[in-house]
């Protein structure tokens, strides 16, 4: 067993060390891609939610204010997220 350990000593790597990628990745480009994915998911979710409100709220007066408030609040947060991308 000692011989095996001695033979492997030259190729020892720290298991906690993050392996190097063969290409370089820019953190801001990852954030940009993530931002667009999140934005697309949000748009789809908003369309689905708005569809449910206008289809099933039985012409309630609350449908437009509720969807508007959600979109307005979301846009504020999306702008906040966008400022973190750069």
């Amino acid at each position: 067993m000692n011989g095996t350990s001695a033979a492997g000593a030259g190729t020892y790597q720290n298991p906690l060390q993050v392996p190097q990628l063969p290409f370089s990745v820019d953190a801001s480009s990852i954030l940009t891609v993530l931002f667009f994915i999140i934005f697309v998911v949000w748009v789809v979710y908003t369309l689905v939610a708005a569809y449910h409100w206008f289809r099933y709220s039985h012409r309630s007066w609350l449908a437009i204010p509720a969807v508007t408030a959600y979109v307005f609040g979301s846009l504020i947060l999306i702008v906040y997220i966008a400022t973190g991308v750069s």
Partner: protein
Amino acid sequence: MEEFELEPGEEIVLTVREHILVFSLQLIPLFILAFIPWILGGLVSWFAAANPAAGASLMSLGIPAHVWHFFIGVWLLCVWTAAFGMFTRYYLTVWVITNLRIVDIKQHGFFNREVSSFMLLRVQDVTTDVSGLLATLFHFGRLSVETAGKDEDFHMTGIERPAAIRDIIMGQVAKLHTVPDTTDGGL
């Protein structure tokens, strides 16, 4: 009405939802979740102050402030969206009481909706249950309707003024039973 058509002579008497307080109480976990980034930040600061070596290791990670900014924004957007989803489920889950029937509409989630109705003439028993301090103070509770010929028990929890709604339902049932049957009047 898109989901159910009112019969000739049928009119909506009442629309019933959960009490707004019940919905507000369901929002408390989301409210706490919204503050998680700041709670975690405080804990990390406290930990770093208590253990300078560990604090130095954390600082050496070198994550830029704008990246934290980004993820905090995403977290808040998720919490906000979850809250809106809960409000949508709250608002679209409703009992529509007409002078002929009760329509039970349950919005379980997006594209997951259950609509059932039962005639008031089949109602045998209406039970209300108000239990607990908040329920008693704010007048909300459970209302169950037992119908003839069906094992299923129609119920709604956390609705406002269950006793008043029970009286309205029983009043409508009584009206239906006192209306003279004219279908065979000419024979």
